[in-house]
């Protein structure tokens, strides 16, 4: 037989769980609705900015300087797909998907990056 105190305890637990679920969902939504900003730069100048979360149709464009890089943007990711520079390190870097990811074409002074910081590190030594 449940006593009055038990009922109060159960009520408190139920309310606490409900609050917990709400908090978890709010936090998750806050994270999911954070934009994922990609920038395309040449030297120090920002040429283009995208919120990768809102990109619906894939698009490609060129960064023209001493050489030419082709950048491809899709939902959630960005990369160099082609370049006429000698070593093509930029293309080999592949897709950028996470905050803090960066690909650089040194010969053409071109950079693509996803703004923000990686989960566990501030910067990479290479």
């Amino acid at each position: 037989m449940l006593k009055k105190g038990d009922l109060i305890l159960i009520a408190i637990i139920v309310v606490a769980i409900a609050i917990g679920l709400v908090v978890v969902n709010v936090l998750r939504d806050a994270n999911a609705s954070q934009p994922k900003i990609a920038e395309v730069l040449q030297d120090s100048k920002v040429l283009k900015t995208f919120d990768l979360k809102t990109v619906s149709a894939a698009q490609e464009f060129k960064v023209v300087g001493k050489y030419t890089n082709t950048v491809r943007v899709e939902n959630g990711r960005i990369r160099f797909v082609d370049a006429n520079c000698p070593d093509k390190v930029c293309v080999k870097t592949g897709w950028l998907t996470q905050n803090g990811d960066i690909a650089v074409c040194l010969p053409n002074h071109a950079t693509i990056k996803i703004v923000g910081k990686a989960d566990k590190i501030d910067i990479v030594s290479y």
Partner: protein
Amino acid sequence: MCFALSACTNPPIAFDKQNFAMGTIISQHIFGDKAKLAADEVMQKIKYLEDNLTINKPGGEINKLNANAGNGKWIKLDKEIIYVLGKAKDFGAKSNGAFDVTVGPLVKAWGIFTDKFRIPPASELTALKKLLNLNNLELDVPNSAARLTQKGQIVDLGGIAKGYSGDVAKEIYQKNGITSAYISLGGNIVAVGGKPDGSNWSVGIQNPRAENGKYLGIVSVKNKSIVTSGDYERFKIVNGIRYHHILDTKTGAPARSGLISTSIISDLSIDGDALSTATFVLGLDKAMALIESLPGVEAIFVTDTKQVYTTSGLKGIFTFDDATKEFTYVEKR
């Protein structure tokens, strides 16, 4: 969202700036009121140093020294250039010639850092090796002068210039009252203080066989320089052989010591820059002995058998974290 126990102040926002200089990308991440001012001053100074330390374009102090090689004349040079040359000689001696800034003729022959890479014939390398001798770089420190005693000799500071520039950047930050910042000069990291909340900077160590930005461990530091040298930074593969940019003056060819990456953690970045190259050329055993003999300097070595070694002082500072699971951390030797 605000909770009762968490402070609701916004975290400070860093000023970020990136530029291309010294043949690489320079990224600055600075906190504080004078961040932009300091960042601009750093870039100005780096461009000055590039102009005076490079042999890849005409003009500047080092070209003056090289142009007069073998004619006996002492060349007056800027005090800080003499300091860099002194450091180069110092680490040349400490590493038993593994780090040798008279490598210039070899660098030119291989076409390193140009789009004209070539594999010089053995006869050419044998002839060029006669020009490589750090003892022929003479310094007159009181008179701020230097000379090269053999005609055809070329000092190339590519293995130390970025390191020195990192130290100079740190001085500029501190002069401007900045207590939290880092600069990356093509992957040479110099951290000033810690993060604004007082915690350490987490610096990833590049996985030498994965895409740029993928790391195989993390160094947690304040106020340190982290410099990495690897065979993956600039290389060409010809007939299955990897030709990279770190030349061994004893063989005249890219160093094949069994190490594919070396990272040096030190107070001065100029030391770290010279030592990362020196240890790469020396190979694991000699590299380990050299670094353990230098107080305040620590290192991470990665071998071609995909093993990761660290010096004794990195306990609790280095965390092995290899997402690819291809490398093994050898904690004890």
